[in-house]
């Protein structure tokens, strides 16, 4: 149906924005979703991700900019003339029609008479062949979700838009549906644009993730790239957890930046700091909790040289099976989070113990110190920030 040189399913947003009166939901943004990819728009509620999706669907008229599907400019087209279908949040199945008619709806509106075979095949694809004559309210949440996907997919849209389609499902079912959706996407090869606030969902399903915040795209890239090389504290905190150390630049030597923090020295690879670096200036040095090793202060001598190290005291530890999560207070940063795999547990690592935190210097990333290290977190400071953005 689609071939490699077919760009009919590319979505190209150019300078697209949406304002409601004085409120700007989406600041002018450019976005290209290549044909056949699984693209996720990730962000907290109110960040403009759903509005962006609805502008692609045609359900929202952009204040500025254009929407292109392949070569076609669809900005002025009403939703019923766009080769795009949507899986709505809470599914929006027609309550007065049975499952068969719900799925057949799009075909019938396009004047296709014999729909029986197609609908049957589509219901089999989502494993709902038995339920064809039931009404939506007689199905479980997971089944309704599959009907919503089938109802959209049967039209062979160029792009399938998914608006938090798994939000109403419980965790276990959500995991299963994530895999299911990914399988369907690979099978049909249609471009998927998926809106979600669940970072794990975005990372497991999407090829490319765009993180949105306050109506802007903060960063776009593959899940691994976003996780390892966040360019803002919002991205660093929204995808997983990060520790930040406010540090002064002592010197720049070769490919490394030497930082002074909490009485010690830290090394930051120059290449991993997108912010401008000047001697005497400040940067935020970040490191992920799982990259850090924890050694009791008595054994500090066994730590290989060349690693970044910080001293501190454990204030809290929680055992969660595969790993233990420690909170460590240190002069460089209070409430440092460390995740240690439970391979060989050191029984001395309990709250109150003095420890040395150390990690491979290459795992340090640097960010502009002008921003709040709490952006994108769910803590009190982060919540304030989220409210401002909303």
């Amino acid at each position, binding site marked *: 149906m689609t071939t490699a040189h077919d760009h009919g399913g590319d979505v190209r947003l150019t300078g697209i924005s949406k304002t409601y009166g004085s409120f700007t939901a989406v600041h002018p943004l450019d976005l290209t979703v290549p044909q056949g990819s699984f693209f996720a728009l990730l962000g907290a509620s109110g960040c403009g991700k759903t509005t962006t999706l609805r502008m692609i669907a045609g359900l929202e008229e952009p204040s500025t900019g254009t929407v292109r599907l392949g070569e076609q400019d669809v900005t002025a087209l*009403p939703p019923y003339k766009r080769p795009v279908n949507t899986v709505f949040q809470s599914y929006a199945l*027609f309550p007065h029609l049975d499952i068969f008619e719900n799925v057949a*709806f799009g075909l019938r509106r396009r004047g296709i008479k014999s729909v029986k075979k197609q609908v049957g095949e589509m219901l089999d694809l989502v494993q709902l062949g038995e339920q064809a004559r*039931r009404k939506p309210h*007689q199905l479980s949440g997971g089944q309704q979700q599959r009907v919503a996907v089938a109802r959209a997919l049967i039209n062979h849209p160029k792009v399938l838009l998914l608006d938090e389609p798994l939000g109403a499902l419980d965790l276990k079912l959500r995991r299963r549906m994530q895999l299911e959706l990914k399988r369907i996407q690979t099978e049909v090869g249609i471009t998927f644009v998926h809106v979600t606030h669940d970072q794990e969902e975005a990372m497991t399903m999407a090829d490319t993730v765009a993180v949105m915040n306050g109506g802007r795209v903060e960063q776009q890239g593959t899940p691994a790239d976003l996780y390892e090389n966040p360019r803002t504290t919002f991205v660093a905190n929204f995808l997983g957890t990060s520790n930040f150390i406010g540090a002064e630049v002592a010197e720049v030597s070769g490919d490394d930046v030497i930082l002074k923090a909490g009485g010690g020295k830290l090394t930051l690879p120059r290449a991993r700091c997108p912010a401008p670096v000047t001697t005497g200036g400040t940067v935020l040095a970040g490191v992920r909790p799982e990259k850090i090793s924890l050694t009791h202060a008595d054994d500090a001598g066994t730590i290989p040289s060349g690693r970044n190290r910080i001293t501190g005291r454990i204030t809290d530890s929680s055992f969660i099976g595969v790993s233990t999560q420690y909170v460590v207070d240190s002069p460089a940063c209070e409430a440092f989070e460390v995740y240690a795999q439970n391979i060989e547990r050191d029984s001395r690592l309990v709250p109150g113990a003095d420890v040395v935190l150390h990690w491979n210097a290459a795992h340090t990333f640097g960010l502009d110190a002008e921003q709040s290290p709490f952006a994108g977190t769910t803590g009190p400071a982060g919540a304030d920030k989220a409210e401002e953005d909303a």
Partner: protein
Amino acid sequence: MAARSPLSPFAAFFRLLRRNVVVLAGLGTLGYLLLPNVVVTVFSFNKPKGRFNYSWQEFSTDAWKDPCGVADMCGSLSLSLQIAFWATLGATVLGTMIAFALVRYRFRARGAVNSLIFLPMAMPEVVMAASLLTLFLNMGAQLGFWTVLIAHIMFCLSFVVTAVKARVMSMDPRLEQAAQDLYAGPAQTFLRVTLPIAAPGIAAGALLAFALSFDDFIITNFNAGSTVTFPMFVWGSAQRGTPVQINVIGTAMFLIAVLLVVTGMLVGKRRARKSR
């Protein structure tokens, strides 16, 4: 040891009463509601001695065999049915449109319109009747079928708007967006999604309008001129003597209504079973 002392009949009765108090209260209320209908039905089989059908004499099916045996009664009945039909149609179409406008659109004076719609429901009927008559007379309108119809559409409107509005308000706007997303243009969306989902509200409004129009007396009496509707006929004959046929018509109306409700319930049940 001593066996449990048997309850006195008095205590046993009270225990029974206490356990079934809800059922008894329900049955009592139902009886209170239906007793008038029972009386009407029973007396439709009466054979009164004089002109008034107020005391039971003997069983007879004469009136049922000749329901139109009373001069002018069936004519007035047919007129009432016609007025009720057209009033229902007019009020339902207009009321549905008003309800959609009030729920879906933001326009100036929307709040005011919202409250004004309810005014006819709250106003004493006799006041409305008198003012309508004044209006018609001043306009030089010929009192009769048309003035009655206009009046009926007017007072039925509020009820239709209320019934439909409740339904439209509970409708998820995303359903219509989903229809548009699935290639349904505005007209198709309205016919295939909006209207079917709003239908129960519209049907409820229409039934209400029909019942209100059919048995309205006060407003009709003021504005009918020399036209005589069924309620006016009953009123008029009650002063000279009540023919048993009035009870026959009353009973028949009641039975038809019950039949419609039961059929509706059965159809709904069967549909639900089929889709299970």
